[in-house]
């Protein structure tokens, strides 16, 4: 084997110009796959986190009729939550009371969703990332209103001003009350600024005259735990709907799944394109050395060693390209680690529920897939020239050279 390795390395060096070009092609392809993959994974993560952080959670518990008739009419008890239900894998839970509402300033009126929150337990929603002007909601008893920058602009209001909120109470009664604007927030996704008006959970409960809530969001540490946690909660609370984020947000769920598939399709397409170039280069390289291979076989080198030489040459080039390609891809990844600013396309990006900064994301499993696929491709690519050598008789090889 040492002999074969020595011959393989020297032959690679001997045809260094061509092999360099092949190597460059591999590096660019692997590096390109790596970067595309990390961006796609970033987009996938973005879809997921946007959906989860949008006051949803990985699992949501709510009244069975709440989705059909959102508001305060179909509530659930507020004493469900306690230490994450004591379930392994649940990292946070939070209760909310939310309802469609109309918010009015002296000059404008807008439809929003008023959400009563407990800010202490809102550790996994977009609320934790808000950029605030003013004081915000400090506890669940806080009676002030926190509105988005865009809503504030639409309503032509500002900090400290009063707004009137009109909503339908638990018994279909109209409730109208005044709130002081306690804070104005800017969110990563501008749509949140239009959609939500936040206040303290208990303050809202007091206002509408209930101790109940509309929902409990449950957050898990690992997506794989969702089905088990969901099944457990459904068993424990049969009178309540327990929905996963995929059921609540099927569009994002589909996008998430499609991106996952697309990543593998991309890897396959890139690597398949590469394999044709690789086979072409290798077949040419082998054809140029037909006589040499004939001579090696004539003087007593068995066919297995001759094939091994071609395969090793190919695998060495492929592995070198893999290492350099991943190295290059990592450098690009680090360069882009702070994300790509898509704010110039904010409207379009938000239409897809994405944030305006695309942050690449690495998944270890993809490294393994790209690595194994590349080595496998190297082996497949070397099969064709190797087969050609074996199929050609020694005499034919000696004559053809």
């Amino acid at each position, binding site marked *: 084997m040492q002999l074969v390795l020595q011959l393989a390395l020297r032959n690679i060096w001997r045809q260094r110009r061509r092999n360099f070009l092949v190597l460059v092609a591999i590096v660019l392809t692997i590096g390109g796959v790596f970067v595309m993959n990390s961006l796609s994974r970033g987009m996938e993560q973005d879809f997921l986190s946007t959906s989860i952080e949008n006051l949803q959670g990985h699992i949501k518990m709510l009244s069975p009729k709440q989705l059909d008739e959102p508001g305060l009419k179909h509530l659930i008890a507020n004493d469900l939550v306690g230490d994450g239900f004591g379930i392994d894998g649940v990292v946070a839970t939070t209760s909310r009371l939310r309802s469609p509402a109309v918010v009015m300033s002296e000059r404008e009126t807008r439809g929003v969703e008023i959400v009563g929150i407990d800010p202490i337990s809102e550790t996994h929603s977009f609320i934790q990332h808000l950029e605030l002007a003013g004081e915000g909601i400090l506890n669940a008893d806080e009676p002030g209103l926190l509105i988005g920058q865009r809503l504030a602009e639409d309503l032509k209001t500002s900090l400290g001003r009063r707004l009137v909120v009109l909503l339908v109470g638990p018994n279909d009664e109209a409730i109208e009350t005044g709130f002081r604007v306690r804070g104005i927030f800017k969110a990563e996704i501008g749509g949140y600024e239009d959609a939500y008006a936040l206040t303290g959970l208990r303050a809202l409960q007091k206002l509408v005259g209930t101790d109940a809530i509309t929902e409990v969001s449950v957050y898990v540490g690992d997506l794989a735990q969702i089905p088990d946690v969901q099944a457990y909660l459904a068993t424990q609370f049969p009178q309540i709907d327990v929905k996963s984020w995929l059921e609540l947000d099927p569009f994002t769920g589909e996008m998430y799944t499609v991106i996952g598939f697309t990543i593998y399709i991309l890897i396959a397409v890139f690597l398949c394109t590469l394999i044709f170039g690789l086979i072409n280069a290798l077949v040419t390289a082998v054809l140029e050395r037909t006589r040499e291979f004939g001579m*090696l076989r004539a003087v*007593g080198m068995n*066919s297995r060693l001759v094939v091994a030489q071609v395969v090793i040459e190919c695998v060495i080039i492929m592995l070198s390209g893999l290492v350099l390609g991943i190295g290059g891809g990592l450098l690009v990844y680090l360069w882009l680690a702070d994300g790509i600013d898509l704010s110039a396309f904010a409207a379009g990006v938000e239409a897809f529920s994405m944030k305006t900064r695309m942050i690449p994301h690495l998944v270890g499993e993809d490294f393994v897939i790209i690595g194994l696929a590349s080595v496998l491709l190297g082996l497949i690519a070397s099969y064709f020239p190797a087969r050609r050598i074996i199929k050609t008789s020694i005499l034919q090889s000696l004559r053809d050279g």
Partner: protein
Amino acid sequence: MADFAVQTNNVTRVYQEDSVPVYALRGITLSIERGEFVSVVGPSGSGKSTLLHVIGGLDRPTDGSVTIEDVSLGSLSESELTDVRLFQIGFVFQAYNLIPVLSAVENVEFILQLQGVGKKERRERAQDALRSFGLEELFDRRPADMSGGQQQRVAIARAVVSNPAVLLADEPSANLDSETTKEFCEYLQRVNDDRGVTIVTATHDPLVMGYTNRRVELVDGQIAA
């Protein structure tokens, strides 16, 4: 122990060219004793090279049998035939056919490496073989940096370093001038005399024929009367 290094019995080799059978060899029966230096001569297309290929196990006869040192090649698998070429036969080709990426000493070592000889021993034997052909200056030189004559001498060193029973040389002087051919033939004769290696060479060069003990003349694939 048999008296003969090489025996062919009624060897026929037929090629198909556009479905037309072409007879390269027609019933060649030949015995070559150990230590003989034989030239196979004849005009182009007479079957000289084909006979050498069949004797060397590079080609299989359509009919008849070939025996090298009591081993009948016809019954061997491809793998066994490869071993016979590796251990029993040395080849010298018209076009030298050295491995371009290896130095002279590595080219000679190559055969020993295939035979599984240890690193130190094979290096010593390769250097000794090159020295015996006056090539000590070329140990580290690659084929591209050698003249045709030097390459052919390295090729002989490679062919004999493993002490084969038979050395087959196919038109070895075709690319050499007369002075180099003469020098080359003297090396072959030394191999024959000093090592007792049986040599069979296909040639149409009278200078080469002059060094051999026996001539076998082929005409149209048959031994001339």
